[in-house]
């Protein structure tokens, strides 16, 4: 009994790590622009595909190199290329709308549409056949009694925590993080202070998208089947996790992701797996009803 609880705990930590990594991207962009970047789940999917292509390319060219060398090349390259995709979206779709001062909801709809384009464009170009991700590092299973851990699981959890610490450091301690927080306070006063607002926004998208790329790589290492719609559901769920944590707050997204992971794994442990979404979302809904701005969110007071 105890072992199965610990085993489920680690599974939940792994799932929670994926949700957290994606939710962090949502929350970063939201925190700066108050824009729900609905394309983020699909950027995660693009990240997984980029990782697939980069990894297969280097495995084919560097046949003699060991797997971890390929992985160390693939990791930064995937993050950079995914960041490029995110920045491109910002540059061609969101920025012109922002310049025109369009209603925020229209930008959200544009984001939704960009997500659809990425999803279906991928499906149309690469076909419906699922891609299986190459195995780069040997799977090592550590067994403690009944609990078994793979090295991958540990790597996923550790990298989620590291990313959280890094982002928290950037946002709260550095000058660029201060600029990001400043934009979220007052978008009109910030340029007057000499802060290059567009550069800061691009930096935010780079951070968020590269984390999505990292999540895509780790996800496809753990579950090596890729399909174009893999980002849709996980993206929506991660967004819900970010909101439950209190959207716009890094800690909130991190904890919200893990909370969702725990709830889902616990539901599957006790109920049939078809009940997963039903019970998980009902619990999250109850949390939102009692704490309408999420766990870490601060209620905005309006002055009359």
């Amino acid at each position: 009994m105890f072992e199965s609880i610990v085993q489920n705990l680690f599974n939940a930590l792994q799932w929670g790590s994926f949700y957290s990594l994606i939710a962090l991207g949502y929350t970063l962009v939201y925190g700066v622009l108050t824009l729900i970047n609905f394309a983020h789940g699909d950027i995660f999917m693009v990240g997984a595909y980029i990782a697939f292509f980069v990894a297969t390319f280097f495995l084919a060219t560097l046949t003699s190199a060991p797997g971890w060398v390929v992985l160390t090349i693939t990791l930064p390259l995937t993050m950079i290329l995914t960041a490029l995709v995110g920045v491109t979206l910002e540059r061609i779709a969101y920025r012109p709308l922002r310049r025109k001062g369009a209603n925020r909801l229209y930008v959200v709809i544009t984001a939704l549409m960009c997500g659809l384009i990425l999803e279906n464009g991928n499906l149309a170009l690469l076909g419906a056949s699922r891609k299986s991700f190459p195995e780069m590092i040997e799977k090592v299973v550590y067994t403690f009694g009944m609990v078994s851990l793979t090295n991958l699981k540990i790597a996923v959890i550790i990298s989620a925590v590291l990313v959280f610490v890094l982002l928290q450091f950037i946002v709260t301690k550095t000058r660029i993080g201060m600029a990001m927080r400043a934009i979220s306070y007052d978008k009109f006063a910030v340029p007057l202070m000499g802060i290059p607002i567009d550069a800061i926004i691009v930096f935010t998208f780079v951070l968020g998208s590269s984390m999505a790329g990292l999540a895509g790589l780790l996800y496809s290492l753990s579950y090596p089947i890729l399909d174009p719609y893999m980002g849709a559901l996980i993206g929506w769920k991660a967004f819900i996790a970010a909101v439950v944590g209190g959207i716009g707050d890094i800690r909130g997204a991190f904890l919200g992701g893990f909370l969702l992971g725990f709830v889902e794994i616990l539901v599957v442990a006790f109920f049939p797996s078809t009940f997963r979404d039903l019970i998980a979302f009902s619990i999250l809904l109850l949390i939102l009803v009692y704490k309408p701005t999420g766990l870490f969110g601060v209620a905005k007071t309006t002055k009359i």
Partner: protein
Amino acid sequence: MQRFSVPLLLALLFGALVAASHTGAIDLYIQSVIMFIGINIILSSSLNIVNGYMGEFACGHAAFMAIGAYVASILNVLLFTKDKYFGPPLLPPELSLYFFPLVLLAGGAAAALAGMLVAIPSFKTRGDYLAIITIAANFIVTSTIINMNAIGGARGFMGMKKIIFSMEDVLELPWMLIWVILGTVFSVWTIRRFVSSTYGKGIIAIHQDEIAAEIMGVNTNRMKLMAFMISSGLAGIAGGLFAHILGYINPGSFGILKSTECLVMVYLGGMGSLSGSVISAILFTLLLEGLRFVIPWINTGLHWLHLLPDAYEVSQVWKWVIIPLILVLLMQFRPEGIMGNKELSDIFPRLKRWYHFK
């Protein structure tokens, strides 16, 4: 004359369409396109109450459609057909013709009750937190249906075609077309009456400034409840019609993608413009169906020009790349949608001479 021009025009259109489909002048495909246009009009204009006039961001409209569709279909199958789960019909099948509108309304009422579940959290929450509640509601509704094995679960629910046949046994007419047109006119008329009444202007006041509206004596909680219930109730009616047109429903067709379609139609038409919603629903459906024919032409054209490798065919998947692309471009050039927040008669003031629609 002004007062009668719109009803007269609608009656003429209705008569012409019914006559044309009864005699077979327009084939079944065109009939179904017309019916889907009607359903999309109901969906977009009803979502426009909450997202346009009230300025909230509800993105789970398909959930209410699902509830309406399932309640209406189950009631109809239970009452009028022999089914392996529900047993023999409770009423003679000939009555289905007269009970059909009532069953549809029952589906709408069930959806409106479900809308209350979303409306009550909206008293405290606004904006993005409300968006999440509606998305979660959509997931909850579809996965509840998946887990109910008595109504088919993930496999879906069928048997609605028999209702249509028994209606046609009573009187040989294209009944679904008639019901869809009547339902569409009823919904648009209800919404128009609601938002142009003094009472209904409260929801526009909430959009402008909620606190000011409350100070001016608008009961904001009740207005929100009304808006959500009307919006989701009409979506339920649309769902009931949708279920009977297809004759088969499954939870997968009421997912977040359907909600996205509804959102797209609202923002394409313009927030808070009823005629915008109607126009965008028509355009969107025609675009969706038109691309079905255009894509093979593009395919043969590109192959003829040798721009594509021979092994690659432009498939129908491209439809869902082209439509979002068109919308993104439209948003860039006209960010407020087709009509903005104006009605048709605001853009062409001369039209006021000809019609009066309230």
